């Protein structure tokens, strides 16, 4: 059961501007399929920086990242984009929905990019994801016509469309009120427990972290407890 899907090996990162500062120092950990992991720590401890390195979007680091057993080192930009498309779903603090498209099309976009299924099938799958999140009635609205909590749930549906190996979240509840935050948290929990979905969520919400399966705590660029 404990299949490793994400592994960080001796990851370090430096910021060079204006002076060289080490922001990540020898980070090592693994995430297994179905793990619901939160990363906590004070502001500036490097938790978001770590997340963006793990997400393949930030390629300026030392050490090695393995996703699904494959090293992300020395891969081309287009190949990394493909990895993000296929294996990683993102939920950010801000929803980043495209107002030009309907809610449904927003959810469908990464699926259309992957091109694994036909358009009708992707649409069907998008409806299913929206149903899981309880917002299928909003499918044909534009993102600017729905509420903030609903927007974040649409973003989660978008992250789920390609059945990713792992969902990464950067403060996904940071912009939400308590009620909506709880809804999002319950969705994550349900995804992990019901659908065996792995999740890696960066947060500074202690209550949120306490309820996850595993907490990685960081301080000054190091992991102080796994």
């Amino acid at each position, binding site marked *: 059961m404990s299949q490793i899907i994400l592994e960080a090996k001796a990851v370090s990162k430096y910021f060079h501007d204006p002076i060289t500062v080490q922001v990540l120092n020898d980070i090592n950990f693994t995430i297994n399929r179905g793990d619901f992991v939160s990363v906590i720590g004070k502001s500036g401890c490097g938790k978001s920086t770590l997340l963006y390195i793990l997400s393949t979007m930030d390629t300026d680091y030392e050490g090695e990242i393995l996703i699904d057993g494959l090293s992300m080192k020395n891969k081309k930009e287009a190949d990394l984009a493909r990895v993000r498309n296929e294996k990683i779903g993102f939920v950010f603090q801000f929803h*980043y929905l495209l107002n030009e498209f309907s809610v449904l099309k927003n959810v469908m976009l990464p699926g259309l990019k992957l*091109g694994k299924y036909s358009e009708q099938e992707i649409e069907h799958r998008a409806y299913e994801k929206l149903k899981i999140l309880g917002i299928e009635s909003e499918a044909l609205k534009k993102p600017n016509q729905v509420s903030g909590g609903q927007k974040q749930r649409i973003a989660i549906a978008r992250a789920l469309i390609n059945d990713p190996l792992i969902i990464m979240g950067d403060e996904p509840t940071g912009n939400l009120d308590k009620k909506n935050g709880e809804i999002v948290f319950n969705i994550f929990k349900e995804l992990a427990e019901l659908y065996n979905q792995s999740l890696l969520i960066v947060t500074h919400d202690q209550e949120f972290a306490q309820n996850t399966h595993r907490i990685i705590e960081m301080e000054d660029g190091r992991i102080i407890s796994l």
Partner: protein
Amino acid sequence: MMNFKLLVSISGSLLVARLKQTIVAGVGVTFSIAMFITLLSFMSGLNDLLDGLIINRTAHIRLYNEIRPSNLQPIDLSETYKSHHNFISSVKPKKERLQIYNNDAIMNFLKSDLRVSGIAPKIITQVFFNIGAIDLTGAINGIDVEAENKLFLFQDYVTDGNYIDLKNTPNSIILGKGLAEKMLANIGDMIQVTTSRGERVKLKVVGFFQSGLQDIDNAQSYASISTTQKLLGESGSYITDIQIKLNDINLAPSLAKEYQNLFDVDAIDIQTANSQFETGSTVRTLISYSVGITLLIVAGFGIYNILNMMIYEKMDSIAILKATGFSGKDVNRIFIGIALTIGILGGALGLLLGLGMSWSIDQIPFNTSALPTIKTYPINYNPRFYMIGVVFSIVTTYFAGYFPARKASKVDPVIIIRGK
């Protein structure tokens, strides 16, 4: 394929979301392409008109005999003085006739030359037109009426009377409009001319011609070849000029040289005789092209600006597209797609508008006494201008889109997303 369709649909959505700017950019392209086409069609129409003034009435090659002193004096031919410097002053041309010798054989040879599209023989002679006690100097062009009409559209310039009467009526003449006005001559009147040999002859006026060039209309006239031969007291084989039209006008200079050597006559080609017209046409064409292309480049900057603005507005969208798996290349294609859509739609409308504007100019009356055959402003509907317009609109918009698109493809999603 699906990826392409997806990128097109994203381009389309971004375009529609910024419809107003898109239309402004598109109108810029439309306007510049339309102006480009109208300008070139009009300019080139005018060029053709002006060139036609000369080219339609001028032989591509003219064969004639020029009176000039011989290049070789007898002493130059002497073996004894070959190595000496010989000074001979006051050399005079010998009495030589202007006639082209053996012209029948020359004309038969030319008729069988495939590079020649037609020939027309001609006699040019100076005469005095007698008006009471006053003599006006002028010239009679003796022409083969049918050949002249075929080659030089003679009938277009005969504004009164029928050109063919010149052939059918013996001892007839068609006068230049200006000349006729001076002589107060009407069609059907008899006029009197004095030939260079002193003989007085009466000729019947059967028409007037108007070439558009004052100097010609005030001094020139036309008669048939046989009338002119009679006037000069020459035989039926006497002609002074052979006018040649070629299938390809660009061959004129080299063929002129060839004929000059072959027939032992003087030959002049149209390019040498009228070099100033070609220069004028070239400069006018150059000006129209530069103005047209400037317009297109300005439109290109418009597109560049709008795409740049769009990229700043859509930073978030670009970032999330990249985060969710779109590569830099995909983003690049989306923005190039937007630029090309503006270019192609704007360009296509520009072609139609350009055609419409050219057509409108073509309808404006343009009457000038100098150009009797022209009724409206001239337009050249050359498909080449439309081709250039299409190609240029696509190329300009592509480059206008290229730099913003490259910028968009380089957007680092981490900076945008973390910056929030």
